[in-house]
């Protein structure tokens, strides 16, 4: 049995909150005369989702020390799904 330390969990949480606030900033302000192109916003937001997903999978779900198959399955989900959505938005 593996247990994440409190400190590790709280650091991960703070990272998730900061990334959420950055995303929320994009949702609120970025579209009114934004200084970033739509393409850049899609890429940045997708990267933020991937990092948040990785933190939830590895730290909150405690898969960092799980059998590789399950960890990689879940990590591939949090990488692939935002990437596919970003590709649909940017390519089509």
């Amino acid at each position, binding site marked *: *049995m593996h247990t994440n330390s409190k400190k590790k969990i709280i650091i991960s*949480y703070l990272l998730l909150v900061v990334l959420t606030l950055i*995303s929320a900033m994009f949702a609120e302000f970025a579209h009114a005369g934004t200084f970033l192109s739509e393409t850049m916003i899609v890429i940045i937001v*997708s990267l933020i989702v991937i990092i948040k997903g990785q933190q939830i999978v590895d730290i909150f*779900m405690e898969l960092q020390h799980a059998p590789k198959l399950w960890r990689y399955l879940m990590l591939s989900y949090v990488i692939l799904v935002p990437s596919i959505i970003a590709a649909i938005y940017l390519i089509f």
Partner: protein
Amino acid sequence: MLHSFSLVRVNIYEKAFDNTPFADLGIIKTMAINQTTQCESDTPLENTSNAKNKTYLPGDLAMWFFILAELTVFAIFFIAFAVTRQMYPQMFIEGQAYLHPVAGGINTIALITSSLFVALSVEAIKRNAQSTAKYYLIAAIALAALYIVVKSWEYKQLVDAGMGLSTNTYFTLYFMITAFHYMHILLGMVILAAMALKTGRGGYLGQSLSGFEAGACYWHMVDLVWVILFALIYVIQ
């Protein structure tokens, strides 16, 4: 070290006797309770060199298959939403103007904080801090309730503005996906409440924690889905 050793030994005894006629005698349970209550401490189990080298899947396998199935359904919804958005960009821009990004942001923070409390409750129960684990679960449920209140308010705003499932493709997808997630939150709250009740009456003392971990992982899955949903529905325009 002694703490971890005792717990490992108790687990071995439990596993060895689980399927034997001796399991009913209550000896194993009594031993487990004695061992675990004796050595309540802040030292996490990972401090043993053995635990560090071994891989460990939290919860049980059935829950992970269930989580994978759920995530697949949500992935199909997400991709359908993205593809439809490319087909009707104007309709999606107009529809999105009715949403409240601040409400979405509050809900994201509420769910992430709720997940934090669930992760802390897992950490607490693994070092046998039963009441701490219970209070963390109650805090997680309270934040989930905040999510429900904010989301319900948002639905009411939309309905008052005359929007519904049949308004257009955007709102059909919006309501379907978010309501499906909303139901997962409700189910998750029931699971967390059951875990809190069992923890409150000492149901996990000296027992396997896989049910507790499985419930926690389900909740993190609901959080994970919302993180993607938030970006898809509120952020990218």
